[in-house]
């Protein structure tokens, strides 16, 4: 498989088909896992070798779905760009969607750049139905699916991949990918090293793999978007419980949701408490003394110290006071973050503040 950047793919595709592919590679986020984009590989042509390029009109599209990557062949004809494409669904040779369920195919509009992307989304939706139908091979897994479906918060954000029956062991496996309904909107500012990088949507995905139809081997995994993971203190900060033996998803998923929610609340509360403390500290020591937020995570274990010269006003009334400057960064809403001082004292202009770093020693025990 030759990985190619979107620009390379766009360069090699036939000019008439370029708009269609552009929307796929640039805006192609389908499914629950929006962090992974659609990828294009194996660009080929259906024209003769004497046809001058670029004339590629068929390629392989990689689609993330339920923890798997679907590899579908999409076949155009560069000599007839107005015609709709054809598809080869890779290993899923038995997947045959009903054309009437694909309106963007029936009413194909080559002039609409979003037409192909929309058609792919419709196909994925049909594929999801196809996988759910395959769950009928296992009553246990079908029960899991039906129970989740009853809850709209889980049923509407669910992807299922039913694996093939193992011809040797007769085992049937499946994977459930759920988007957890957890609110991450109040998580503090996430400071990125690379400000140009879009952290993307904050999402938590729970993947539960059933290695056998009787649910004796179940392996759950929690996937967090980079911003959430960073905000919660890294991958080691949060551990989800193991799937209970004999348990079911309808009991386990809410448990994980609650755990995640509690952790988020904990982080938020810790952030607010630190803010209150710093505000109180500032008000106590006046404008000379200051605190500075530690750069990075809201880990409450990081010590905060006040340099001696800044303690002078309390100790030595004649000491100079160095004004505080907030750290530079980007808030979750994309705005430059304001320093605590600016927030508490709006009269202080942001432009005069320089980036600086001061450690304030706090009693960790008060925030633990």
């Amino acid at each position, binding site marked *: 498989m030759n990985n190619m950047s979107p620009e390379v793919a766009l360069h090699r595709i036939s000019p008439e088909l370029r708009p269609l592919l552009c929307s796929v590679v640039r805006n192609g986020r389908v499914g629950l896992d929006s962090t992974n984009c659609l990828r294009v590989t194996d660009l080929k042509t*259906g024209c003769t070798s004497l046809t001058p390029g670029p004339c590629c009109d068929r390629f392989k599209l990689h689609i993330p779905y339920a923890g798997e990557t679907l590899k579908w062949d999409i*076949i155009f004809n560069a000599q007839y760009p107005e*015609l709709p494409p*054809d*598809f080869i669904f890779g290993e899923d040779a*038995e997947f*045959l969607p009903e054309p009437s369920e694909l309106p963007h195919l029936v009413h*194909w509009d080559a002039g609409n750049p979003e037409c192909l992307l929309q058609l792919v989304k419709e196909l994925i939706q049909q594929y999801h139905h196809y996988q759910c139908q395959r769950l009928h091979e296992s009553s246990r897994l079908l029960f899991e699916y039906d129970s989740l479906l009853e809850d709209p918060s889980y049923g509407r954000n669910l992807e299922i991949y039913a694996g093939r029956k193992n011809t040797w062991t007769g085992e049937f496996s499946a994977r459930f990918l759920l988007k957890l309904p957890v609110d991450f909107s109040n998580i503090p500012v996430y400071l990125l090293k690379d400000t140009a990088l879009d952290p993307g949507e904050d999402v938590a995905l729970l993947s539960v793999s059933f290695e056998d139809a009787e649910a004796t081997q179940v392996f759950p995994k929690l996937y967090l978007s980079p911003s959430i993971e960073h905000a919660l203190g890294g991958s080691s900060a949060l551990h989800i419980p193991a799937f209970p033996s004999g348990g079911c998803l309808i009991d386990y998923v809410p448990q994980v949701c609650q755990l995640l929610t509690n952790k988020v609340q904990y982080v938020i509360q810790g952030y607010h408490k630190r803010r209150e403390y710093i505000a109180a500290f500032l008000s106590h020591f006046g404008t000379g003394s200051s605190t500075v937020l530690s750069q990075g995570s809201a880990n409450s274990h990081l010590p905060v110290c006040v340099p001696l010269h800044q303690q002078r006003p309390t100790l030595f009334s004649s000491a100079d006071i160095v004004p505080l400057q907030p750290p530079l960064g980007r808030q979750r809403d994309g705005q430059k973050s304001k320093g605590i001082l600016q927030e508490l004292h709006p009269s202080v202009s942001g432009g005069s503040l320089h980036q600086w770093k001061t450690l304030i020693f706090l009693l960790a025990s008060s925030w633990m």
Partner: protein
Amino acid sequence: MAASISGYTFSSVCYHSANSNSDHEGFLLGDVRQEETVSISDTQISSSELLQVVEIHNHDPCAQLFSFYDYAGKVSEESLNSILKDRRKNVIGWYRFRRNTQQQMSFREQIIHKQLTQLLGVPDLVFLLFSFISTANSSTHALEYVLFKPNRSRYNQRITLTIPNLGNTNQQEYKTSSVPNTSLNYTKVIKEHGAEFFDKDGVMKDIRTIFQVYSALQDKVQAVCGEVEQSERIKEKIQEDVNKLKQQIALRKRVTAEEERRRRENSQSTPEENTEPCEASLLSRINFDAPSAPERPSTSPNPPSYTDLLSQDDNLLSSSSPPTSAALLPRPQAVGSPGHPTPVPLGTDLGLGLRLGMGVNASLNPVSTPSTPYLGNGDGSSSDSLDRQAAGQEDDEDEEDDEDDEDEDSSEYENLVSEGAHLSMVSAGVLAQGRPAALSPDGDARGSQMT
């Protein structure tokens, strides 16, 4: 199920496809026939196997894509009829050509195929997929083709497509019905150099020579077979003669035994009167038996004559021992017979400087005085009885002993007796002691009776 396509049809489809600057499709025309193969094997009398063969005779390319179906893949029967016209009944499948794609039926192809199967009324409609696979630098192009026969359960079921004379001709018979080479240069060269390899009939010379060798070998084999047959027949005839002679011998022996028994019965009633007649009859019997007695194979190429043996024995004899004739030799008897003395162990010194174990065919008794060897015959009777036997007089016991002897041996013993009559008289006991083991075959005949 199998499929076959003619070479020119296959090449025509490839030609149309290769010259198309996009995907290309069309219909396959042909016929479906059934082949029944009857095989006979040792395990069963016969077994028949039915095979459905799809024969592709021609193809009908479509002018453009989507000519008989819409974007959703729905087939229009009107468009179908306008394309096929009267060839609709000959449709046995359809084909598609697409470059640089997988050899797998696509989404739209499966939908179209399902509808064509219903509209055309061909349940075994086949789908032929061509694809050109080219390398990145376009240096190598591979034409791949797969024939699908989709069904309800499997849409990727494939069947074998054979093209006559396209394949490994080493393993298959090359079809002679192929189009000959019409090149003038080729014909000229063959004509010029063909005489070296072909004869006037157009057959290769080597082949004719090989056939000649084969024929000669066959003739030789036939001749050898005849000779073997003749020799077998001769051998069979000789075998028959031998069997007849054996039967005659057995008959004569039976007759002889009968006569002898009668004579004995007669002689018992008048023994004196019958002495001479007995002697004569004995002699006659001897004479009668002598010619017909089978010769025993000799143990040595030149067995020593009896006189030689006697001369050897003279050296072993004591001076006081009167010589006795061979006629006075004790009658041989088997070990364990009532009159048979206790055999003396080997190595026993009998006082004559001799030891036993020389294969002496005589019964021996313990000798107390070497100077007076025992002249017994082993049955308890005295040597007088031997004399009487030599003279033709026989006792009853002797007669019984005679009857105990084997018939074939009786004549040989009589021969010895007759021979002994002409030899010098030697002491029987001395002879018994000094007789060497390397005797004539007659002595060996009594080996079973030796101790």
